[in-house]
């Protein structure tokens, strides 16, 4: 079962796509109203993945550090936008985008670079065959955690502003006044990865492992890679959510530790 990948051509892909056509017809018949969004999402996925394939092929052949940096920055920028757009109450101005993007830079990018340097050690260390998929996995997962944590923090602070201010009025420092909300936000951010570690291999066969097995890899090796990725994602999510929650909760107060909900919108 070594290296024997069954190649996929346009014909095989269109067979899979025809299933979506069925879903579209179903949506239209049942008036679910998602056929348009389904079409757009499927076309987007197809274009984005084809482009990624082209870009990766180019990256693998040139190994240009600049090109790799450019691709990684683009991925980070898009992930930052995703985090921003998923919040119901976000910080005004650049803080809203910057907090999420910086937290992902601190967690995902750092951990990806650390992993290729310390654990995998390909030659050169920035070899895109390892760095880019690793970064993609990390960004995709920490993105969810950070977005959930920031959304929880903003929403809960907005809804419980009376409680936070009651504590400020009695002389509690801002960090104590928002402590409960901060902890709730961190917990919320970590729940998705905790769930996926708990059910990994029992209920769900994680994407990376599935991919390696389909590509003819050794299942035990695939399992080890999957474990490594899960651990990295958990660490990255914890690190990223913590930094996002710390930065954002600081920004909810001013230097005189007043609750400043006018910094949200």
């Amino acid at each position, binding site marked *: 079962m070594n290296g024997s990948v069954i190649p996929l051509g346009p014909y095989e892909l269109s067979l899979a796509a025809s299933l979506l056509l069925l879903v579209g017809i179903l949506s239209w018949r049942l008036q679910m109203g998602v056929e348009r969004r389904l079409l757009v999402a499927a076309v987007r996925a197809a274009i984005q993945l084809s482009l990624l394939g082209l870009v990766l092929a180019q990256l693998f052949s040139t190994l240009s550090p600049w090109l790799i940096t450019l691709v990684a920055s683009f991925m980070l920028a898009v992930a930052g936008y995703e985090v921003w757009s998923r919040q119901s109450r976000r910080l005004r101005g650049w803080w809203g985008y910057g907090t999420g993007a910086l937290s992902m830079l601190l967690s995902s990018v750092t951990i990806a670079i650390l992993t290729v340097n310390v654990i995998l050690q390909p030659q050169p260390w920035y070899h895109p065959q390892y760095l880019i998929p690793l970064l993609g996995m990390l960004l995709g997962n920490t993105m969810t955690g950070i977005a959930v944590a920031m959304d929880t923090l903003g929403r809960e602070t907005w809804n*419980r502003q*009376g*409680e*936070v*201010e*009651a*504590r*400020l*009025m*009695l*002389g*509690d*420092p*801002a960090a104590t006044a928002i402590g*409960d909300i901060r902890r709730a936000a961190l917990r919320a951010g970590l729940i998705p990865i905790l769930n996926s570690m708990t059910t990994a291999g029992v209920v769900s066969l994680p994407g990376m492992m599935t991919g390696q097995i389909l590509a003819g890899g050794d299942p035990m090796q695939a399992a080890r890679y999957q474990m490594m990725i899960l651990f990295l994602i958990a660490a990255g999510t914890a690190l990223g959510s913590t930094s996002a929650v710390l930065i954002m909760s600081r920004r909810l107060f*001013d230097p*005189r*530790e*007043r*609750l*400043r909900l006018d910094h949200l919108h």
Partner: protein
Amino acid sequence: MNDLVVERLERPGLAPIQGLTVPAGQTLCLHGPSGSGKTLLLRAIADLDPNEGAVRLGTLRRDDLPAPEWRRRVIYVPPESHWWEEQVRPHAPQWPPDWLSRLDLGPDILDQPVRRLSTGERQRLAMVRALSRRPAALLLDEPTANLDDENTRRVEALLQDYQHAHDVPLLWVSHDPAQRGRVANQNRSIDGGQLS
């Protein structure tokens, strides 16, 4: 002496304020139509909203202290109390039984869920909660708004005893002329953000 002195104060919604002094151990009552800026003034003195100014407690200047320390000394008590834990007890380091009984509150109320209590019970508990932090000055925003006559008198008496025991200045917002007659050493009014 721990006079509460507002030398000047500027904040959105209020005309600049110059010279407002509540001497230690005395009560200054503030009245004015709703929306006139009473709450804005009290919140600004407690440094809960952005404001510019020079405020001091005796010789202690507000801007020389970290804001939480200022707010622990000069406690603002809002008309509607908020509670962040399920039960009453964790909201204060201690609940002196004597104060509770003087406000007609039994000791078992501390283990009740806050949401089961009446507005009046919450308001009286909020007063004990504030006093248990041993404030050196109090900014009281309609502290008896939801209370019947009897409980109003109980709260007034407790506040005045605390005031006299610790020489505390009280800045007291009250709608009720009779109450102002009972507790005030001085009266000021505020209208359209203008203190007079």
